[in-house]
């Protein structure tokens, strides 16, 4: 009795939170539910996957979907379902880590640039805009050239590719908020710049940045798959959706399932991320704050 009312209260509190409100609509519930499920699958991959993702069985290569390999096997006879499940791990963790790094760096740079202004702002924005002018693949190639192919290069490449977006957005928010009366009032009360920046400006600026971060995770997954497709990302036998599709192209007509299922996984995940991101924008009521940054 007591626990159930506590659960009810927790759920109630969650529903009143903005992220909770994003789950409230039909689309938000389906997309959000799928993402929660995907994260759980990625976390518990070793327990969910029916087979070892790296176990080869050349006798049973290119087997069509059926029993016991529900989604078939690839050219080495590895279970496609298990590899897609473990691929979720790679995709989500690489994309989320990269976006987290990008967000942290972008928010710091953007907030400092917006708050202090002047020469510092111009210097930061010039450098950041410069990173934006390079194609993502090129940045990834530079990293591969420096530290070799692998997930670290991919992560840094994605992080740099999205740095400009977070920096510009945060800067725009801070510049707008800086002119608000309550910031002036806080200065009048003798607050230090660090207090103003951390306690008043950042909390008020963070909502749009979180949403853009959410949407960027979807883009990050596509970028990770692209880099994996070109062999710049995860190295075999680590499963990655992009790399799986790449190896699948060789047997496109012989065993299309090898390329179709990871492709579907990428597509559905990115669509879910975008739909949920849109619901989040609606729930947080920040549509116009995302413009003009």
């Amino acid at each position, binding site marked *: 009795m007591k626990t159930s009312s506590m659960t009810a209260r927790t759920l109630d509190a969650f529903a009143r939170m903005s992220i909770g409100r994003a789950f409230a609509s039909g689309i938000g519930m389906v997309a959000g539910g799928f993402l929660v499920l995907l994260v759980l699958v990625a976390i518990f991959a070793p327990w969910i996957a029916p087979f070892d993702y790296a176990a080869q069985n050349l006798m049973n290569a290119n087997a069509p979907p059926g029993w016991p390999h529900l989604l078939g096997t690839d050219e080495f006879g590895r279970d496609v379902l298990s590899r897609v499940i473990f691929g979720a791990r790679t995709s989500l963790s690489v994309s989320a880590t990269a976006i987290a790094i990008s967000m942290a760096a972008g928010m710091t740079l953007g907030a400092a640039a917006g708050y202090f202004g002047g020469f510092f702002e111009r210097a930061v924005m010039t450098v950041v805009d410069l990173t934006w002018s390079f194609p993502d693949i090129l940045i990834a190639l530079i990293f591969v050239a420096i530290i070799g192919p692998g997930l670290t290069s991919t992560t840094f490449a994605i992080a740099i590719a999205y740095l400009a977006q977070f920096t510009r957005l945060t800067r725009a928010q801070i510049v707008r908020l800086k002119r608000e009366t309550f910031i002036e009032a806080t*200065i009048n*009360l003798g*607050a230090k710049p660090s207090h103003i920046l951390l306690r008043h400006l950042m909390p008020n600026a963070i909502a749009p940045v979180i949403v853009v971060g959410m949407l960027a995770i979807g883009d990050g997954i596509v970028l990770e798959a692209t880099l994996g497709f070109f062999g710049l990302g995860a190295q075999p036998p680590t499963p990655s959706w992009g790399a799986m599709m790449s190896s699948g192209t060789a047997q496109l007509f012989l065993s299309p399932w090898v390329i179709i299922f990871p492709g579907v996984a990428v597509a559905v995940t990115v669509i879910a991320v975008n739909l949920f991101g849109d619901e989040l924008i609606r729930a947080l009521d920040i549509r116009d704050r995302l413009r003009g940054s």
Partner: protein
Amino acid sequence: MSMLEVRDLGVAFGAVQPLSDVSFSVGKGETLGLVGESGSGKSLTAMSVMGLLPLIGGRITAGAVEFDGQDLTKLPEKAYRKLRGGRIGLITQNPMTSLDPLQKIGPQVDAVAVLHLRMTRAEARARTVEILGTLRIPEPALICERYPHQMSGGMKQRIVIAMALAANPAVLIADEPTTALDVTVQAQIIRLLDDLVKSRDLALVLITHDMSVVAQVCDKVVVMYAGRAVERGSVEAIFERPRHPYTQALIGCIPRGLEGTERLTGIEGTVPTVMNYPSGCPFHPRCPRAEPICAREVPAFSTGGDSAAACHFAEVGHAKPA
């Protein structure tokens, strides 16, 4: 003894000089009214006292701002920060937007005492509740848990006043504290400020354009026009015998209640902007008494009785305004 003294203050933004020759002083338990139309430099004076001019690109070019005998114009920013909110409180024009929308009332008010009085969070909260109580806010402990959007304008203004008072300042500057509020609440807030001045021995600078408020609570008045002080004196002297035509016109603008059918009077023309301040006496283009000398020479203050006016004809006196 005067807590805050401003002497011949001049402020410039680049080549533009929006403020010159502003002087006044306030002592403990005294209320000074700083009056004038919009754009006459009242708020700029407040910002100069708070040391906020660099923020908007201005600087003090002349005169002195003394707080408790200490010249503030040369004070480094760090020391200034201790004064702001600590010894000098400022209440801004718009309470609706003066509070952080994401923070509860309690923590926002607490922060002031934590910062300036080095209190712990618990001590600060106790103080916050006490101050909110003295400002006649019902159920102060409950209010601390509210967000700004859950409160009315009058309540928010009280919270803003509470924040200004939290560190026990000696001087309070209220920059049109009632403009954004409706009339019944305006009277409450003004009475509240007046009580605070008396009970806490505060020095209050009340910036307003409402002459009737000035008549009710102020001890001294400085009338500003186009970035200059044009008349200063005790409230009795200013109201009984206004010597500057602009002051006379302002007093003439107070509606006189029950007289009914009488039309409301205004002052013809508008306040000049900084870019086209007139030569000589700034008021001469709108002045009914203006003569050629007014356009040529800036009048000096001439003292008489309890007031001084910067008008070429202050000694001669004027016909009572219609």
